[in-house]
């Protein structure tokens, strides 16, 4: 299969299954990008997610643009973006009248509720995966230390995630470059 078709299909599947906006599609995109098509490896995916979160703008399209461009150049970029955006945007415009009637329907509410536990588990598995890789690379004390500081900064001090990511890059560049 041509790579642009794979990109379009992969990003279509990952985004059409994510209820609740871009972030809920992250583990589904991981599944397509890393596990299925091997466009990126774990550490590249983590790096992309870090920079993606440090930059403003919607996360799903940033990931699609980067992976699409990397795997298939400009054609790939447009294919991945089309797979991400077009189906749901077109569906919203076409189905607006129909959906208006079902907006409060228990069927729609039940569907968007029951997706949550699956996304939660996929997200937890992805967390575990990243933690395991990080420990393998820089050792358990460095990894746990950075994670603890990041948690304290973001959750307790409510420091902006972009600043925490920049700080982690700085620490890694200065200190961890002697470890890895």
């Amino acid at each position, binding site marked *: 299969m041509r790579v642009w078709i794979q990109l379009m299909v992969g990003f279509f599947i990952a985004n059409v*299954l994510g209820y609740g906006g871009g972030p809920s599609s992250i583990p589904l995109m991981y*599944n397509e990008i890393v596990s299925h098509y091997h466009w990126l490896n774990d550490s590249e995916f*983590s790096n992309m997610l870090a920079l993606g979160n440090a930059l403003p703008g919607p996360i799903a399209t940033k990931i699609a643009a980067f992976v699409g461009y990397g795997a298939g150049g400009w054609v790939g970029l447009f294919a991945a973006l089309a797979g991400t955006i077009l189906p749901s945007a077109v569906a919203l415009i076409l189905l607006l009248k129909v959906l208006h009637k079902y907006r409060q329907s228990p069927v729609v509410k039940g569907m*968007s509720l029951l997706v949550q536990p699956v996304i939660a588990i996929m*997200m937890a598995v992805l967390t575990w995966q990243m933690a395991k890789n990080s420990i393998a690379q820089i050792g358990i004390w460095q990894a746990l230390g950075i994670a603890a500081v990041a948690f304290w900064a973001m959750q307790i001090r409510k420091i902006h995630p972009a600043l925490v990511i920049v700080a982690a890059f700085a620490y890694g560049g200065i200190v961890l470059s002697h470890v890895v």
Partner: protein
Amino acid sequence: MEKKQNAYVQLAMAMLRTGILGYGGGPSVMPLFRYEAVTRYKWTDDEEFGEILAIANALPGPIATKMAAYLGYKLKKTSGAVVAVLFHIFPSSIAMIALLSLVTVLSHSKVVIGMIAGVMPVVAVMLGEMAYNFGEKTVKGLGTVFGIAMFAVSFLLLETVHIHPAIVIMIFLAYGSVHFRLAGKRENREKERDVAG
């Protein structure tokens, strides 16, 4: 003064601003969308904006691009939708590619390898936080016991039986579509039993 601008320029400016000022993915950008669409340009009112957001949330897929497409379409049909979406996503897409290409060029440098290693635990914490948020929504919506049962079933299907996530989600969507009806029936039966007993 802004009233004199044509609709395409307004759309482009509004979507450019929401695209480069919003952090944390689509859902967190919705207040910025509301500000542009309701307060600044008066394309729609608060009530309609809320309605559209609710409808857009009923569909899967990224929320910011759905809302951009809708607002563009409302003003200028298909060409408006295209302009709105493009201006919303392009600055951040290009920045992402430029920044990561730079990192790739430098990827043999020890410093860059260290930087990437340093950020991985932070990404793990962010993912963990998202996992917690989705878990919290589950428990709030389904109750503690049923919620935990659903976590267990998801984990079993995904990690032990190794069923493709797409299929697992379809199974949960199928059950979700009848969940409230079944839950309602169960409640009724219990009430009847209480009355009878």
